[in-house]
């Protein structure tokens, strides 16, 4: 199945300049599987989003088809074929 990762402009320096990455995954894949796959092709992009223990960074929000992933099953959230995963930096800092 194919899942689309939507990359914010601030991270496009690490995605080859593109705002959409279409990622091929096996059936029944999870959000964690998506980022594991991204780590293979775009390792710097992945480590901006997750730490080395594969936890999504505190001030990065990841939406799966419009639902914030922490309110779903986090990294274990199942993805559907055609899902859109949207990475959005949270509003933080000063």
């Amino acid at each position, binding site marked *: 199945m194919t899942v689309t990762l939507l990359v914010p402009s601030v*991270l496009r320096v690490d995605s080859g300049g593109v705002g959409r990455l279409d990622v091929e995954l096996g059936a029944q894949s999870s959000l964690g599987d998506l980022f594991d796959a991204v780590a293979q092709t775009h*390792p*710097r992009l992945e*480590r*901006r*989003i997750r*730490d*080395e*223990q594969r*936890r999504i*960074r505190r*001030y*990065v929000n990841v939406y799966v088809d419009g639902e914030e992933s922490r309110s779903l099953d986090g990294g274990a959230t199942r993805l559907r074929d055609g899902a859109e995963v949207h990475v959005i*930096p*949270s509003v*933080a*800092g000063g």
Partner: protein
Amino acid sequence: MDTVFAIGTRKGLFLARSTDRLHWDLSGPHLAMNEVYAVGIDTRHSPPRLLVGASSSHFGPSVSTSDDLGESWQEPDTAPIAFPEDTGASLARVWQLAPGRVDTPGELYAGTEPSALFRSTDGGKSFELVRGLWDHPHREQWEPGGGGQAIHTVLPHPTDPRRIVVAMSTGGVYRTEDGGETWQPSNIGIAAHFMPDNQYPEYGQCVHKVAWHPDAPDLFFAQNHHGVYRSEDGGRNWQSIADGLPTDFGFAMVAHPRRPGVIYTFPIEADARRFPPDLRARVYRSEDAGRTWTGFDKGLPTAPFYSAVMRDAMCCDNADPAGVYFGTRSGEVYASADEGETWQQVAAHLPDVLSVRAAVVA
């Protein structure tokens, strides 16, 4: 004499260049919107390699390097510093980047938050956790100081790869004499005034910064959370050198690049009152290993001055006469071309300054 002065701030790195150390050209911010807790200038390379421990509040920490004095920056695809999966830990910040032995140009050490030591043998592209310190039985008792639980000082012996000294707040000074396999607390004589009973514990002191001179590798100096100390035996025992200073509180401690026993600090009134004594910006220098001190303020702001200098926001360069540098929490940066006696402002209105390093380029 071309000098580069790296200024790490809360929102990126600024670089100043000067041929006379009186007039400076400023560039930046490089790595904008990253906290730069650690800068290093590795003079084992020509031109010197700039090392930056930068962390984004959103996208995490990393290490970047420049081999062209900031014209371009390199960052590995894979995380240069990462905790192994079995530790369960995640890198929060890099607090210190310390070049290793002169004859081993790829050797580099990083002190991190949470408190750990990492070693690189490829000039900073990748680092490996020093397990001996991470597995130390004291680690569970190390506490975060106000700034976080971090190894903020790393002092590799200039010639002996077995000897390294590290320091943290709060945990104290530790040393290894077997290349990092085993570590001994090295705090005899350093007080922990915040302890209710035993104020001279084996470890747990809040050491703010430790400095030494590579030509005298058994001679150390420490600025503590109240207390200023000297060790003449490689860190085993410490004696107070606070007499002669207006206060014994502060963060910075800097050693002269060539003259062992010449040291600098920036006193702050007290733990509970973190302003310079008498609200005067003064750098204190000792030329006799802390037995006597002299304050210098010519060229520095007049009173009242309410800002402070953090533990890594003061340094010397490697020139002769030595340059001395510091940056403040209020984003002012000063340089002295005459060993700290007179000062010129390099920059103002920067984000708060966290770390500085300077070196002669050519």
